[in-house]
């Protein structure tokens, strides 16, 4: 047995010796790598963090040094780690020291090393997102995709090329479980597509009491209900070039849909025309609904005064009744900012949301940042480690509540990319990193924005052809108002 290890060690040394380079110069500077993976925290089950050097070089070598093993990779101007070797390496290590050397003007220059911290808490292995060009009012091609983040496999599970070019909205899971999920398809044969263990239903969610079809929402953990906002949505353009588009509501209410009885539940409190209520989600235990609420103002003239607070209201999943009193969790009047996109962590400890200067459409708001509320203490973490100059929004938790993913435009202000962030047991957020790609230059040559990234524990049980069939051939089920 010892002899076997000796042979392996010798072979490793041999390989290492073959790949060793003579360093001509050492710099006390960190290398400029793209994507920025310097000193990030990563889960053990992530795909290789391939990266490139954005400089005019003739070669690059990277040494990943762990406590027990090392991995050496070479490239011309980018580094692509072998998937199997990568898995073997990070499976056993807690920290990797990353040393980058580049060949420039015929001399090898070594940069200061940085580290990748590998944590035991795994991230949910699947990520769904919408791929869309940032046309910001009119769309043409839309795809909903699912990526296994343990490798580089991507699967398109809905494509509007197969559904008359109809718009497709957010795809969301119930508690990150792929056996229940949904998204909306607009258009003549569209509806809300509800996936229940692979059985697909098409729902016509608009009822007489609702001001529109279901828009933003989330599942009740039990799976029987989902809470939605119903909105009159108006898109308008800013004059200022970098802000681009504002989308606001002229009316918005909340409704709870019962998927067993095909009924819509509304209450006067949540359909008050003097209030705008939107972005509802259930709490992790299903006993509360969190949502964003604002006093209605004259829009668009007073749009900058439109600031949403975070409220909560009780919900009884036995009889489907909504409470009569709403509590304010985060007060917009005190912060003079506006909250949107609420997501409760599956362990019930946190509420993650986006804070912007005003309104409910932060994706073109440069100042839009993520915030984390500790639901026990009410303390708000400004997530300074996480946020960047451009919009950070549309987030989703991993099922273990240790990771979340969000869409960030930090790299160029136009194209959103999924970034992953680790929250340790003390609630501290670590520096996020972008979804790795096989070709590290992938994002540079892509015209697509990654919208609404959502994590899940497994692959979806349907595909794009199933969605085509449902769109064209399946009758939509109607909903009625409860008690009517």
């Amino acid at each position: 047995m010892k002899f076997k290890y000796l042979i392996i060690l010798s072979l490793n040394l041999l390989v290492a010796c073959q790949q060793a380079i003579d360093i001509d110069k050492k710099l006390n500077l960190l290398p400029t790598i793209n994507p920025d993976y310097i000193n990030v925290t990563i889960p053990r089950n992530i795909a290789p963090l391939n990266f490139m050097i954005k400089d005019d070089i003739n070669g690059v070598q990277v040494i990943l040094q762990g406590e027990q093993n090392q991995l050496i990779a070479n490239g011309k101007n980018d580094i692509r780690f072998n998937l199997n070797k990568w898995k073997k390496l990070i499976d056993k290590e807690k920290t990797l020291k990353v040393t980058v050397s580049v060949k420039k003007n015929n001399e090898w220059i070594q940069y200061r090393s940085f580290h990748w911290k590998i944590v035991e808490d795994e991230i949910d292995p699947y990520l769904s997102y919408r791929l869309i060009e940032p046309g910001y009012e009119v769309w043409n091609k839309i795809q909903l995709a699912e990526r296994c983040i343990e490798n580089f496999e991507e699967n398109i599970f809905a494509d509007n090329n197969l559904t008359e070019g109809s718009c497709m909205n957010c795809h969301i899971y119930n508690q990150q479980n792929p056996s229940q999920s949904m998204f909306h398809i607009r258009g003549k044969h569209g509806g809300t597509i509800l996936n229940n263990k692979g059985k697909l239903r098409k729902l016509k969610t608009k009822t007489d009491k609702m001001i529109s079809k279901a828009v933003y929402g989330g599942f009740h953990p039990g799976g029987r209900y989902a809470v939605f906002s119903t909105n009159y949505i108006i898109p308008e353009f800013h004059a200022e070039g970098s802000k681009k588009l504002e989308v606001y509501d002229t009316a918005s209410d909340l409704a709870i849909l019962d998927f067993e009885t095909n009924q819509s539940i509304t209450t006067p409190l949540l359909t008050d025309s003097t209030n705008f209520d939107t972005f509802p989600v259930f709490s992790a235990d299903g006993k509360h609904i969190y949502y964003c609420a604002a006093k209605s103002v004259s829009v668009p003239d007073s749009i900058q005064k439109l600031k949403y607070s975070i409220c909560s209201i009780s919900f009884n999943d036995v009889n489907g009744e909504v409470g009569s009193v709403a509590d304010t969790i985060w007060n917009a009047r005190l912060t003079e900012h506006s909250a949107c996109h609420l997501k409760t962590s599956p362990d019930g400890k946190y509420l993650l949301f986006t804070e912007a200067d005003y309104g409910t459409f932060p994706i073109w708001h440069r100042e839009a940042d993520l915030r984390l509320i500790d639901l026990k203490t009410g303390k708000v973490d400004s997530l300074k480690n996480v946020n960047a100059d451009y919009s950070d929004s549309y987030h989703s938790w991993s099922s273990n509540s240790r990771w979340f993913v969000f869409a960030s435009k930090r790299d160029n202000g136009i194209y959103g990319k999924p970034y992953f962030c680790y929250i340790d047991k003390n609630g501290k957020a670590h520096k996020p990193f972008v979804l790795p790609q096989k070709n590290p230059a992938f994002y540079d040559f892509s015209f697509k924005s990654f919208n609404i990234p959502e994590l899940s524990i497994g692959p979806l049980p349907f595909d794009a052809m199933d969605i085509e069939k449902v769109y064209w051939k399946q009758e939509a089920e109607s909903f009625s108002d409860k008690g009517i």
Partner: protein
Amino acid sequence: MKITTLSISNNKAISASLFLVPGLLIFLFYLFAFPYHLFLKEQIRLFVFSPDYLLSYLNKPASLAVFIGDFLTQFFYLKGAGSLLITTFFYIHWWLFYKVLKEFFSKNYLLLVIAFVPALIEVLMHYHIDYSLANSASITIGCLLYVATTSIKKETIKHFIVPFIIIIGYWAIGGMVVFYIFLTLIRSIRIQPFKLIYSLIHIVLFIAIPLLTRPYYLIPIKEAYLYPFNNFTYALPLITLSFVIVTSVLTKKFTPGSRFSLVVSILVMFTFILVDPPNFNREKVLSLSCEGYFGRWDKVLNLSSSYKLNNKLASYYTNIALSKYESLPEKLLEFYQPFTESLFLPLGRNSGWLNILSSNDAYYQIGDMNLTQHSAHLGLIFSPYNRSSRMVKRLAETNMVIGEEEAAMKYLHMLEKTLFHHKWAQKRIDMIQNPELLSNDILEKQSFLPQSDTLRKGEDNVTGLRLLVESNPKNRSALDYLLCHHLLSKNLNSFKTDFEKYFRFNRQLPRLYGEALLIILYQQKATKEEISKFFIQSSLMNEFIKYTDEYSLANGQRTGLSNRFKNSYWFYYHFAQQRQK
């Protein structure tokens, strides 16, 4: 002996001429009569030398044909290169069609004539804006596969190999593989004994492969069978060729003596030309669009003056050119003006991709960078291949103007990896890295950026224009667009309000504005003092009096008015009517 040599060399000269003349004519036609269609075809594509980008060709059937087509279309950027490529494809197809026909007919000079007809029809297809070199390449590859198959001597090997060619063929040329199957089927009928089973396998394969690969390519059923052709009529060259072959097999006349086929195929060609002739009007419109894109706005004006087109897009580019030379109000009514749509093209899913592609140019001219960017994104999204070098350039420029350097660099790095736009990109990268190198165009547009923010609907151009003029009173383009917008929509109250608010008399009062003001002042029964505030020339006032006299005499009928008033705003105000859509 001498006479014989002379006659042989004469025959050779005649044959060479007969062979070369069609090619020369095709080359000259696309070089001089239809160059702008070819320029536009390059502008609505983007061929980036990047591994992921190249791999994306595998996401659709006909990967090889589309790859070759897109690679070659880059060269359309160079004047003459497009004509040369189309001519080259013509000769390749002529030769290949001849080779295919030789399989079915005994060798005869008439075969060359028969093969010439579908080859020429294929050439004519290129005058369609959405017919691409990928289509030509798929025809070429389809024929080459067939010729290669027939060169295999042993029939058993052939039977074994054809299914593989069909599978690979679908990947390489998409729905065009049906032509290959058709040829092998007809050939197997021609060559006895006919093995039905093999032909059935081939047909089943053709039906099955697009259906089986659809979950991978994610395309609708019709597209799965047609791709890369997006229009059934584009298969006309092959239908013609197939017709000739089928009639020969049905009539069992395997000699070119079946002149019936020849006559019919020539008739098809002429019918095609008559039913679907080259759209020279569109070529003219595209000449204005492309010359504007090349920055030759003087040429746009010259061409437009000579064309006198009643076309919205032509007027749109003419107006931009007029604005470039600060003569929009002076010459606006010398050209066809379909109300405000000649100033800003309506944007929407049903606007048509050519309008969407062009819509950013006016916004860029007046300095509305947000709508420029929005329109350019839409141009990119709605262009037939969702990749457009022209739109990527505009996006880069726009982001340079608004100071979003990272976004600009994304587009510039992409263009850096192209064959013909890398120098353009490199120059802009240098500008970003050394701001003192920034071009006057970018600097001017930066000075136009609004100092405050507002919200407006996409179609509400007036609000955007007012904000631009308020932010920078020197933005003459925005001011003229604003005032002309009011005039073309016959909104004289808004015209007067904005004229009084924004117009400065440090420039001569344009005749158009004077004419409009006279109508307003006349309607308001203004006093001499009130009129004098506007510095309207007395000669113009006299003309207005003459016009009103003539108008009264003519009882409000346009036929009774002198021609000299045809380009006046008074005439437009009285008689211009929006066409019912």
